[in-house]
């Protein structure tokens, strides 16, 4: 069988699961969950260094950016200027050009502000960034992002951190069918089966944070997601059977005694 890669910009990934590194109880738990998930790419946020506590452990002590791909995000940014500032700083930190853009529009729903998102995508693309873009599940706007240079389209399944699962499979399918760049379902996935369904729809990958970090046993859930993504992908590649309204016996009817 041909090796099945997820190719985003210049990166080739074996795992179609990308995991977030927020909300864990400790860095040690984060590292264990990332390992159990098999993910090769993790999202990270850019924040002020705590200057009051010089000895406080930091993320890079637990997740080596040389071994795992850091995908800097713009979480918490509510306009284009804030997002651009964050990603330019991220690039300065060590040449990160592959980034995740999210420009939020509302504190309660954390839905993206698509006008600012499209504007930022355009600028970042011109500056040489490879931009993976968190977006609404509107196929027209998703197409706009692709036209403006997005390296991956990341539509939400439902609000960030809600765990509500895939609320609009039709729209996600339309985006998947029309996109020439990878489509990664981002935000809202609640449990492993949601990830399988997303993969069966034909998306190229999923990004999971809260569903793993907020599980009762995050490390076990990370493993569940690893398996679910592989299963869903294989199921998509295998092609499901056609649905029938009536039964079809699984055992031969010939030779019945």
């Amino acid at each position, binding site marked *: 069988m041909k090796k099945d890669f997820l190719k985003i910009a210049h990166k080739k990934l074996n795992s179609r699961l990308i995991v977030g590194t927020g909300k864990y109880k400790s860095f040690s738990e984060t590292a264990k969950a990332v390992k159990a998930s098999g993910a090769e790419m993790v999202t990270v*946020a850019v924040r002020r260094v705590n*200057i009051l506590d010089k000895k406080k452990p*930091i*993320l890079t002590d637990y997740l080596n*950016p040389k071994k795992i791909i850091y995908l800097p995000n713009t979480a918490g940014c509510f306009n284009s200027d804030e997002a651009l500032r964050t990603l330019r700083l991220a690039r300065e930190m060590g040449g990160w050009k592959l980034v995740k853009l999210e420009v939020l529009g509302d504190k309660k729903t954390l839905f993206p502000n698509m006008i600012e998102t499209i504007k930022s995508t355009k600028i970042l693309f011109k500056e040489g960034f490879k931009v993976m873009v968190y977006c609404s599940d509107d196929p027209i706007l998703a197409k706009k992002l692709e036209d403006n240079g997005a390296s991956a389209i990341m539509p939400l399944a439902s609000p960030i951190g809600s765990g509500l699962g895939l609320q609009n499979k039709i729209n996600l399918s339309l985006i998947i069918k029309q996109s020439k760049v990878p489509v990664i379902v981002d935000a809202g996935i609640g449990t492993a089966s949601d990830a399988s369904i997303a993969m069966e729809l034909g998306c190229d990958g999923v990004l999971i*944070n809260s569903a793993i970090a907020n599980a009762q046993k995050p490390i076990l859930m990370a493993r569940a997601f690893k398996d679910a993504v592989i299963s869903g992908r294989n199921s998509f590649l295998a092609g499901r059977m056609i649905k029938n309204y009536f039964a079809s016996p699984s055992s031969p009817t010939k030779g019945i005694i």
Partner: protein
Amino acid sequence: MAKIQLNGKKISIKPNFSISDLLKKYNLHNKKVAIEHNGKIITNNDYRKKILKNKDKLEIVHFIGGG
């Protein structure tokens, strides 16, 4: 003595103090950080050259866990 604002907090520094000196003071010289000086990103090569002045605003950021 100069007074600068570092990550939103006012601190005092010695005269002729560079960004490089400041990173050493906070044990950040070997860490992955990025620096914004009065709204402009400073590249690694300029850390030594950049001497901090009174009322300068400095932001030092790094990666933390996030989704």
